[in-house]
C-alpha cells in the first residue's frame, strides 16, 4: 500500500484531502507543520507528499521542506505536489526551484486532485 503524507496546518484541509484520497488504496499520513513533515517523511519514506506552503507554528515553510527533502539522497525520490493557496507565477516558480514535481492551487477540485495522485503514482 502506497503511503501519502498530507502536510497542512489546517485540520480541515487535511480532513478534506484525506476524504478525497479515501477511495484509493493508500495509507494516509498527516503533519501540521514543516518540522513534523520532515520527521515523518524521513521516517516513513512515503511515495507522495501533498505539501502546503504557509504553516504557522513551525519555523520552516513548505518550500523549505521540499528543498530539504529533494536535496537529501535518502528522500529525493519522494514525489512532492505543492498544495497551496499561493497561486502566483512567482510562487510556482519557487516551487520548481525547490524541486516540486507538481503544483496544485487552493481551492482545488477533489476529483482533479484524485486524478493527479493516481496519475503520478501510476
Amino acid at each position: 500500500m502506497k503511503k501519502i503524507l498530507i502536510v497542512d496546518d489546517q485540520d480541515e484541509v487535511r480532513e478534506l484531502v484525506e476524504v478525497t484520497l479515501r477511495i484509493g488504496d493508500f495509507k494516509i499520513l498527516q503533519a501540521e507543520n514543516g518540522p513534523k513533515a520532515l520527521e515523518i517523511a524521513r521516517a516513513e519514506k512515503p511515495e507522495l507528499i501533498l505539501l502546503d506552503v504557509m504553516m504557522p507554528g513551525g519555523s520552516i515553510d513548505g518550500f523549505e521542506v521540499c528543498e530539504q527533502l529533494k536535496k537529501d539522497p535518502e528522500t529525493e525520490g519522494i514525489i512532492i505536489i505543492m498544495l497551496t493557496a499561493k497561486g502566483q507565477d512567482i510562487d510556482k516558480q519557487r516551487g520548481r526551484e525547490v524541486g516540486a514535481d507538481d503544483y496544485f492551487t487552493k481551492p482545488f477540485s477533489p476529483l482533479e486532485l484524485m486524478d493527479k495522485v493516481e496519475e503520478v503514482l501510476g
Partner: protein
Amino acid sequence: MKENHLLISNNVIKDKRLLELKEYFAVTGTKSMLDASAVIEKKLVVIICFERLSIKEWSTEEIAYMRGLSDQFIQIFLRLEESKSQYKLKDSEQKLNRFFDFAPIGIAINQMDGTFSKVNAEFSRITGYTSEELNKLSYWDLTPKEYTKAEEVQIKNIGETKAYGPYEKEYIRKNGKRIPVLLRGIIIQSGGEDFIWSVVEDITEIKKYRNNLETIVQERTEELNIALEDAENARDNIDAILKSIADGLIVTDIQNRVVLMNRVAEDLLKIKLSEVINRSIYYAIKDKTLRNLIKNTFDKIDTESQFDFKLAGKDLNQSKILRVRASIIKDKKGNNNGIIIIIQDISQEREIDKMKTEFISTAAHELRTPLTSIQGFSEILLTRDDISDQEKKKFLGHINNQATNLAQIINDLLDISRIESGSGYILEKEPCLIGEAIKSVVEPIITQTKIHKFEVVVHKKPVEIIVDKEKMAQVLENLISNAVKYSPDGGKIQIKGEIIKENYQVSIQDEGVGMTREQVEKIFDKFYRADTTNTAIEGTGLGMSIVKNIVEAHDGKVWVESEIGKGTKVTFIIPLDQNVEQLM
C-alpha cells in the same frame, strides 16, 4: 577849481606867444589884444577877447574889467552846470521811484531800529498796511514771536556783512493773518545815515506749490515703498513657496548653471545652494548616474522630459526612488531661458504600490483558504456516495463556517476601502459588559491553539461601557489573533481589562517574536505586515489599521510596545466619561 587866465599883449606883431596868429592879425589888422580864459576844474570854459587896431597899452581899468567879465562868465557857467546836474538827479530819482513803486517785489527801507521809512506798493499789498501806516511801525511789529531768534541772527549778519538773507519768515498782516515771505537786504548809506533796504517776496504760491510738490513726492515715495514692499513680499512669498514645496526644485540658466535650489533638493542631492550657485548643474550633482541622466535629458530636451532614478543610500532602506522632471523655461518671446528640474521622491508611492500588490495577493490568498473548504467539501458531498450522514453534517458545518469567515474577510476589505475613501465608520453604540465581551472573543481562540497559555484579567464587578459591540469584538479578535499568530512558539498571552483614570484600558500582551522599532512605527499602516518574509504567518495586513480606526472612532487611542524576541503589548483605551454620562 575855477580861475581866470589873462593874456595881455600891447603889440601882437612883436609878441612871440602870438606868432601862430600872425596870418589872422594880417587879415584883421589887429595890433593889440587882451584875452581872458575862464577855466573850471582845469577845463577851459570860455575865452573873451578884446582886440585893438592900434598899438596901445591896456589900461588897468580895462584889465580889471576883463577879469570881472571873465569872472561873471565863470559864475554863469557854474550856475548853468548846477542847474543841469540838478535836473539830471531829479530825473533819475523819478525813475527810481517809479521802479520802486511798480516793482513786482516788495521793497522796504527801514531805519536801523526797525522803523519803516519807505515801502513800495507791493510791500503794502503783502502786509496789508498802507505806507503811511507802516511809517508808524517797526518790522518787529510784523514779525511773529517764534521768529525772534532767527531775526536776531539776521540782524547780527547785517552788522557783520552789511547784508542779510535770503531768509524765509512770516509777516503778520494787518488782518492778523500770516503770510510767508522771503527776504534779502543790504545796508545803504543815505545822508550820513544807515538804512536797511530789503526786498521782500510773497512766497505763498511758491510754498503752496512746494508743499504740493512735497506731498506729491511723499505720496510717490510712499507708493514706491508700498510697491517695493509688495515686490519684496511677493519675492518672499515665492521663496517661501519654493522652499515649502515638497518636491526638490532646481532652476538653471541657459548655460546650465544653477540659479535656484530649494531645501528639499539640497537634502536629496546632499549639497548646499550656496556651494553650487552659478556653477554648472553637472558640478552640483555628485551621483554619476544621475548626472549622466540629467545631461542626456538636457541635451535632448525639447519642452519637457522625465525619468525615474534610484538614488543609492548608505543602506538599502535609505535608497530613494526619484522622479526627475525637467522643463524648459521660456520667456514671453519663446526663447529658452533655462531649465527647471523638479525632483519628486516617489519612494513612498512605490512602497505603497508594492504594498497594494502584496495586499492583493494576500487578500486573494485569504479568500482561497475558506474557498478551499467550501469548494472541496461541497464537491465531495455532490460526487461521492461513501459519505455517512454524520460526515455530511460535519462537512456542511465546515462549509458554513468557512462561508462565515469569507464574509468576515470581505467585511475587513470593505472596512478598509471605506476608511480609505474617508467615509469612516457609523457606530451603533450600545451598553456592553466589556469583561464578558473580552471573554467571549477569547474562548473560541483558546480552542484553536494548544501551545498558548491564556490569562484573562478583568474586573470581578461587571463594567459597562457604551461601544459598538460588533466593532469592539472585531478589535479584540484582531489583537488576540495577532498575539497568537506572532507567537508561533507559544507562550503566555495575557489579556487585561481595567479602569485607569477616565478610561477603560485593554491590553493584550504576548511572548512572541516582537518587532523592531521600525516595524512598530509602521504597524498601523494599511497593508503593512510586520514580516512579509515569514510566509508562515497569514494575514491581510489590514487588522491593525482597522483596529486603529475603530478605536479612534470611539475617541480612544491605541499604541504598541514591542521588543524583538521578547514579545508585543498592544494597549487601547476607550474614554469612560461620555459613556458614564450616556448611561445616566
